[in-house]
């Protein structure tokens, strides 16, 4: 079974600064997808960014970008120019191409943004 590990239960960043959230995963599959979801206090799960394992280029979405290291099985999320609205729980998730369509989530990282 695939496991997703987020080793940082909590992180803190100052407004306008950059923060990186870590995620590692364990899989024997060669083709899969990785996602970062944001869950603010409203508890709505919001898709932040996705990465296909067969793509070498790191995904970017505005202020959000990933550092995908396939050999190391690492998938970190970088948030640039942090804003107060970025404060939330961030979950890393894995989906194997051949193992169904459900997501396997990490335990999450709570991000605090200070003024």
């Amino acid at each position, binding site marked *: 079974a695939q496991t997703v590990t987020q080793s940082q239960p909590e992180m803190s960043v100052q407004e306008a600064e950059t923060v990186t959230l870590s995620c590692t995963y364990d899989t024997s599959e060669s083709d899969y997808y990785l996602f970062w979801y944001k869950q603010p206090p409203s*508890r709505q799960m919001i898709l932040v960014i996705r990465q296909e394992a067969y793509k070498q280029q790191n995904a970017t979405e505005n202020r959000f970008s990933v550092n995908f290291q396939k050999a190391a099985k690492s998938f970190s999320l970088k948030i640039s120019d942090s804003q107060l609205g970025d404060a939330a729980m961030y979950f890393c998730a894995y989906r194997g191409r051949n193992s169904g369509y459900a*997501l396997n989530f990490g*335990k999450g990282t709570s991000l605090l943004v200070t003024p």
Partner: protein
Amino acid sequence: SAVISQKPSRDICQRGTSLTIQCQVDSQVTMMFWYRQQPGQSLTLIATANQGSEATYESGFVIDKFPISRPNLTFSTLTVSNMSPEDSSIYLCSVALQGSSYEQYFGPGTRLTVT
């Protein structure tokens, strides 16, 4: 993306009773999922509910406790039966949209408290 609504948004129930949670999507989707998020925890998949077939349950979840209906491509229900305080959680439905990554979009969740 997809717009997903859930009813109720929250409820407080007595031990031994049952609650049915509804999930409505604004477009037709094949794959729907039900997740549980216990307090302060990550999301755990309960079952996959595809229209036209029986729901597929994950290890640790059984149909007698969490019966699921999927009568059409835009609607599903999850019932939490014979509730105990351990069932106090947020229950979320999600849909996977067809595309290269079958990315998932989530409903706002139902916060259940069992007393």
